[in-house]
């Protein structure tokens, strides 16, 4: 167990150090999210009545697609420089590699979501600063990252990874998107646990199943 933690920590620390130095993924994802928000800004007239209905949808479309973007980076540069082989050679268990990469992608996605909150406030006068929304966002992003990391490892090895990753990722994460939008809507209407609770439990169940399943399937995706 100690080996598992130290190995996944090593990978997580390395990815964070690389990201801190290059800031490649976070800037890309952030710019993309802002553009998506702007486009929605023009798509709907920002009257409070419409925004309260459409708001959660906008937020989660932006988060889902920036998620796809940041997942793509997590394995793409490892694959292009061939360093993924270095990780395959090392005696670390495949699940630790999955856990390290999952944590790295999750951190970047949550960071982008955090920075987007004030932008949604300014653009749509949509105040997302409440606990229930934060909980929904956290559990949903874990759901995204769980299968996303697995599919990013798959897509990185193909020539059409920008096409393949969304095709792989979006159908699987549809339930999370439905739950996140409904949960966020409920949290915005201010009905705490009785409104948001069922969606949170749904997403937590989803996360459990897909964290276990994805880390089991990870070995088959990586193996040459």
């Amino acid at each position, binding site marked *: 167990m100690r080996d598992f933690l130290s190995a996944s920590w090593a990978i997580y620390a390395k990815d964070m150090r690389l990201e801190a130095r290059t800031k490649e993924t976070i800037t890309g994802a952030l710019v993309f999210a802002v553009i998506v928000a702007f486009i929605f800004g023009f798509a709907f007239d920002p009257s409070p009545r419409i925004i309260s209905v459409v708001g959660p949808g906008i937020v989660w479309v932006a988060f889902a697609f920036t998620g796809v973007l940041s997942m793509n980076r997590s394995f793409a540069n490892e694959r292009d420089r061939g360093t993924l082989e270095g990780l395959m050679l090392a005696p670390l268990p495949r699940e630790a590699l999955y856990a390290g990469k999952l944590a790295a992608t999750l951190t970047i996605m949550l960071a982008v979501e955090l920075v987007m909150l004030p932008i949604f406030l300014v653009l749509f006068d949509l105040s997302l600063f409440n606990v229930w929304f934060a909980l929904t966002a956290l559990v949903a992003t874990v759901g995204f990252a769980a299968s996303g990391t697995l599919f990013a490892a798959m897509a990185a090895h193909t020539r059409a990874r920008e096409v393949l990753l969304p095709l*792989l990722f979006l*159908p*699987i994460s549809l339930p999370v998107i439905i739950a996140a939008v409904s949960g966020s809507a409920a949290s915005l209407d201010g009905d705490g646990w009785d409104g948001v609770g069922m969606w949170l439990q749904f997403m937590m169940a989803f996360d459990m199943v897909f964290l276990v399943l994805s880390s089991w*399937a990870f070995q088959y995706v990586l193996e040459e």
Partner: protein
Amino acid sequence: MVGRILLMAVSLALLANVVLIFQYAPTASTALGVQIQRIFYFHVPSAIVGLISFAVAAVASVLYLKRRVRAWDRVAWASAEAGTVFFTVAIVTGAIWAKPVWQTWWVWDANGTLTFVLWLMFITYLVVRAYAPTTERGARWAAVVAVLGAAVAPFVYMAADWWAGLHTERVTGPGAQGSLEDRMFLVLMFSLTAFVGLFSLLIVQRSAQLANEEALEELRRQLI
């Protein structure tokens, strides 16, 4: 020899099915579209057989990942291809039936959403197999997609059901039938068995064809 008997039996069943649907099945109530309702006997069986093919593909994929026996992968591939066709038929017939009766091309109820998502998963299964760098990896990745697709199915169904409950009044979509007259039920069951027969016929044939392809490749290898 078994193939021939199955072939004959399924052919007769399919032809008899056509006659049954148009002659024996009663005319439906106006609420269900009177004559157009007869498409129901194609729509529901193809959706059900689509689900069966997804289950077969998922189970065969798990066995292939565990035991690496090529036969399992061929079965999974064959049922994925057949399943894609059945789901396409289900979606098209569902739309044809929904438009005149419920004035929308598609009802996003639990059944409809599940059929659509699993159809997308099958497309992803075939795309991943085509885009993979080598045939072995393509087989393994496709197997992973099938397993994850099967795992997401209950979540999609539940999320869509809750979401539909929240948003649209309980429209009687293709799924919500109420009780069937016995003659309707008989024709439905006959049609379902005919379709299941067709499904197994396609699986037997397609996996035999895949086996031939692999045997040819093996021979070519020995010649070089």
